[in-house]
């Protein structure tokens, strides 16, 4: 057999390179996705470091700029000031911290719970699937605001609770998507072939089912992040979310929208930051999805 004459160096570098290594390699070749990822990271870095470098504090009121006519962007206040005379740039940066954190954390929580739940229900099938999906249905039917208010009443106002509340509704969609995918995958012949080859259930889910559900999951995730950011601003708008002087992009935008005609900068700056993040996120999402699929190019 040629097995002996097989040159070891030729085959060696290939060994141990997993799906993830390959996907990363393909992702790095995708210029749009890399640019978007770098932009997103820079944006996050600016939001984190910016407030430290700025001479202004988040809650510092500049009395001379309290009137909106005097609050336009200037040399001292690059983004201008808000209706309360506070420096807008620092507030946009702080808002970014909150929005990105809520967006990413809540989505991540939803992702983990939803994927695990959906894949298990779909793969187990039968009675297990029935019970697990009925639980999802029941949670769906609970009004979201009722759930949020309930949490607030029991645990008081807390940013952490926003993550929990949002994560708790977002995972339901994820679970349904992944379950549907898993159900159709389960009937595919390569799953049957893996079972016929004696591969165990856990390995089949991990190696054969999950990677095949990733495409839709990644796309859904990139759609979920903006949804979560907007949900947060809705909760905050009702006075149940982030509290003054803390803020978020969603809150800043809704405040800005009220003053759109007199002080357009109050809307424009947070909107630009949010738009850039969502735009980049979509590119990264598309890139990840393409990178995960070996058939793509």
């Amino acid at each position, binding site marked *: 057999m040629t097995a002996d004459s097989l040159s070891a160096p030729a085959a060696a570098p290939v*060994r141990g390179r997993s799906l993830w290594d390959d996907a990363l390699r393909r992702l790095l070749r995708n210029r749009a996705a890399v640019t978007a990822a770098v932009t997103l990271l820079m944006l996050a870095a600016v939001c984190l470091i910016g407030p430290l470098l700025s001479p202004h504090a988040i809650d510092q009121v500049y009395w001379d700029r309290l009137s909106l006519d005097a609050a336009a962007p200037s040399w001292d206040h690059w983004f201008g000031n808000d209706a309360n005379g506070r420096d807008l740039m620092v507030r946009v940066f702080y808002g970014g911290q909150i929005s990105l954190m809520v967006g990413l954390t809540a989505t991540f929580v939803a992702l983990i719970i939803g994927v695990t739940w959906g894949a298990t229900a779909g793969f187990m099938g039968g009675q297990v699937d029935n019970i697990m999906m009925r639980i999802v249905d029941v949670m769906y039917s609970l009004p979201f605001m009722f759930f949020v208010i309930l949490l607030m009443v029991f645990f008081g106002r807390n940013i952490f609770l926003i993550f929990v509340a949002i994560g708790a509704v977002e995972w339901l969609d994820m679970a349904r998507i992944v379950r549907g995918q898993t159900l159709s995958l389960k009937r595919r012949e*390569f799953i*049957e072939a893996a079972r*016929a080859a004696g*591969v165990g259930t856990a390995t089949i889910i991990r190696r054969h089912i999950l990677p095949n559900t990733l495409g839709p999951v990644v796309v859904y995730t990139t759609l979920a992040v903006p949804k979560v950011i907007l949900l947060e601003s809705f909760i905050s708008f009702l006075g149940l979310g982030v509290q003054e002087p803390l803020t978020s992009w969603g809150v800043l935008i809704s405040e800005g929208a009220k003053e759109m005609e007199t002080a357009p900068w109050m809307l424009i700056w947070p909107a630009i930051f949010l738009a850039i993040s969502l735009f980049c996120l979509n590119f990264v999402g598309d890139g990840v999805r393409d990178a995960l699929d*070996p058939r793509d190019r």
Partner: protein
Amino acid sequence: MTSLDSVPETAPLLAVDRLNTRFDTPEGEVAAVNDVSFTIQPGETIGIVGESGSGKSQVFLSIMGLLAINGRATGSVRFRGEEVLGIPRQRLNRIRGRHMSMIFQDPMTSLNPYLKVSQQLNEVLMQHMGLGQREATKRSIAMLDLVRIPEASRRIDMYPHEFSGGMRQRVMIAMALLCQPGLLIADEPTTALDVTVQAQILDVMEDLRCELQTAIVLITHDMGVIARLSDRVMVMYGGRVVETGPVQALFDHPQHPYTAGLLRAMPRVDRHGTSELYVIPGQPPNLQYLPAGCAYQDRCPHVHDRCLGDVPPLIATAPGRAKACFLDQIHSDA
């Protein structure tokens, strides 16, 4: 049942006794496999033939423990003397893939598109033989060579979509044979492939049969495939075995009207003039509403009263031959 064995003195590799497979559906129970009994000797090749829907696949999915969730198999299946029907999944996973393997009809969907061929082959070796990456890759490449995949050491690191249908089916065969199992079940391995590729795959299987001494079950609805590559044939209809025998004898003198019909429906190059292909009239039975007597009664040219009331049992007619028909004799002059 021992009368059906071609070589009764050796211990059978697989002994199936009164296997029954039922599916629960909202419309009622489907009797997919009914009282099927047979044995397979080490190293022999047995062809399972019958129209689609006759229960061929379900017999072997039952044996492999791969039934759909609404399915239930009863009876006895002994592999090398050990009962395998209804054993815990963990024990079953030590047997399937290791001692008995199965390949399926559609090679385009039988491989995971997200994993390289090497990863899928190695997975089996690492699971069953406890080999390391390196050793497993070596064995996998050797096996790909054996199924005649050119440049196996390079191609092993490709993804399934970079292979043609015929190549993928070879990969599936290689995967099934990696641990040198005693039994290979091939469920319509060539049905999804075009004719020239079909012939190549059958060539490969024929070679492997001689080389590895693996017993092969070849499930097909194509009598031509059976003729090519079988020692023995088992004809199935309505979830039952209706006739079994050595391939030559069965082709020359079919004893069940259904077998005769299948043979007549076979396209033949030596039969000139008849441009029209014969088809058995009527439809295969609905396994949910099987008739009281013989399942073939609606389509049988020789049907008589007795066929409507009783199910004909499978009875030995000659050494190694059996039929499930009340007729003494049919004349295959038609």
